[in-house]
């Protein structure tokens, strides 16, 4: 059984593969990836087409921020924002290696300047601002640049009056920026409120993992919150909890499916349905111009109201004494409050 406990993705492919999985070639092509859950091999192109979800078992692989933007919108259909912001090293921090070296390595490895990419795009014809975190850049950790870009994304979306989509995939605050990284939690929580004031919805997508200071700040404040299957969503990770409290945790601790049962997310959504799902909810919460819902009462609703009125008229009127007793301020302190 998988670590997640149970798959919520029912895949026809999975059933098809189960019968002759042993017969699959064990040789791995140079551009292939192997599913850590079911050992199936796929070429890079096949994975790309399937949105980096294993067609056999539904395991969700990590996705880079830019590929995410293509998955959500149209290929090449986004305009990136504030891409030249880069980290400083306020503490001259060194752990096992200097922070500046870690940044340089991450930049080389990922081709990105930071752990979040912001862009304007359309999701199913709804114009949005999106802020997509990328775990491959220093664990998606939130330092001053991530905080600043998220705050700008909030302000930009509020000012334009269009929805904000945030996809989180982060271990939490960036240790190497110390106390100033902690303060990004405050910055993002406050910035997110600009959207509430502008009456614009925030769609939060929790990808694996969403932990620490990211879960304890903006990531837990979405209006609509979807989680990807199997994503770890927690303030303290399982390892920290087991070391601190000596508790034995269930295998699915903090996973998206369990957090759905805990009431922490609105739905667990398969990545292959994510864009359609976001599009659908945005068409209700923030319909694009020309598609606004018409608020005219239907014949059914009118008929209903008349019926309710008729029923109310036919009820016998209540004696005034009884009404008087439960009215507050009538002098009877022991009576129940209205």
């Amino acid at each position, binding site marked *: 059984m998988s670590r997640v406990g149970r798959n919520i993705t029912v895949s026809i492919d999975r059933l098809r593969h189960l019968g002759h999985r042993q017969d699959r070639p064990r040789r791995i092509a140079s551009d292939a990836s192997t599913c850590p859950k079911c050992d199936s091999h796929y070429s890079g192109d096949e994975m790309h087409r399937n949105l980096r979800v294993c067609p056999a078992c539904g395991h969700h692989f990590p996705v880079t921020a830019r590929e995410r933007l293509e998955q959500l919108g149209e290929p090449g259909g986004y305009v990136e924002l504030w891409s030249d912001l880069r980290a400083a090293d306020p503490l001259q921090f060194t752990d096992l290696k200097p922070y500046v070296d870690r940044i340089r390595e991450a930049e080389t490895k990922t081709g990105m300047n930071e752990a979040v990419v912001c862009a304007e795009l359309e999701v199913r014809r709804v114009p949005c601002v999106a802020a997509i975190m990328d775990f491959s850049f220093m664990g998606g950790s939130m330092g001053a640049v991530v905080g600043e870009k998220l705050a700008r994304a909030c302000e930009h979306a509020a000012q334009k009056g269009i929805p904000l989509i945030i996809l989180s995939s982060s271990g939490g605050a960036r240790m190497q920026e110390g106390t100033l990284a902690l303060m990004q939690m405050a910055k993002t929580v406050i910035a997110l409120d600009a959207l509430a004031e502008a009456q614009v919805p925030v769609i939060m997508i929790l990808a694996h993992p969403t932990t620490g*200071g990211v879960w304890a*700040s903006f990531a837990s404040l979405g209006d609509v919150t979807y989680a990807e299957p199997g994503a770890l969503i927690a303030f303290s990770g399982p390892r920290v909890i087991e070391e601190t409290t000596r508790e034995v945790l269930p295998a699915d601790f903090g996973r998206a499916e369990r957090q759905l049962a805990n009431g922490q997310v609105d739905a667990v959504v398969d990545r292959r349905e994510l864009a359609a799902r976001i599009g659908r909810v945005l068409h209700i919460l923030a319909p694009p111009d020309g598609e606004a819902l018409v608020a005219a009462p239907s014949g059914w609703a009118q008929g209903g109201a008349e019926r309710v009125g008729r029923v109310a008229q036919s009820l016998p009127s209540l004696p005034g004494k009884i009404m008087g007793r439960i009215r507050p301020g009538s002098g009877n302190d022991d009576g129940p409050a209205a």
Partner: protein
Amino acid sequence: MSGGKPDGPSFVRRVTGKLGRSSGVQVDEDLWASIQLARHAERPYTLDYINRITSDFEEMHGDRLFGDDPAMVAGFGRFNDRAVAFVGQQKGRDTNERTYRNFGMASPEGYRKSMRVMEIANRMGMPIVTLIDTPGAFPGASAEERGQGGAISRSMQLMWRLDVPVVAVVIGEGSSGGALGLGIADRVLMLENSTYSVISPEGASAILWRDASQAKRAAQAFKPTAANCYRWGVADAVIPEPPGGAHTDHEQAAEILGQYLQRTLLELEAQTPAERRVVRRERFRRLGPLRDPEGGVAMASGRDAPPPG
């Protein structure tokens, strides 16, 4: 929590062992001593201050949703002839009390209790003072399943939305999101020997050095002292402690804190709620230096001068 790929532990131990022997890293003993003072067993805790600077303090209990969290204290009292709401994490002094108070590590119920009290204070037009003293929010399965992350983020959101003056004081150990959950304020004050950090030195040591014994070195790297937080712009003022530290004289420590609170509240009460909210947002908005080719080399975030007094 970030870092490079996990190397083999034995390899890491060899490398760190070598680093430890070389004189490359100097551990500043004064800094370590100050961090130890921040969590001194005899240091005054939240209720020690509240009981000295207020009269008629009425403590509230329970979040009306699940339970009462003894790691968080919240209530109303009289402070210099005005009604003030106080909330803060509470540590224990002996083994029994430490267990009862869960070492000052609050659960979601604690943050929800404090939110309940802050909402009442806001409705009644009462200023709010938070006293921060925690190694972090409680890392337990129960806390997680009841929404620890959301409790902290909603506490921050509520504090940002408040109309009344809000002052946060770090009185001891201010570690991680558990501390910041009470930290969204018009003014953030820090006691001279308190710390405000993204994580405790022990936690950082285990994560970044993969070795729990590197706490001193982690502290050296984070430098989370009150004076540094003032330089970074994280703290607005540093409150002096009695000679030798707050643990040497609780009465005097409380008296000095009361004087600073009084002065800060008078300043804030002279402003309108709208003015306070602009400053509250801006003080967090500007924190965190970065390289912006359009806006200059680095965004100014702190001060160069040491704290006055």
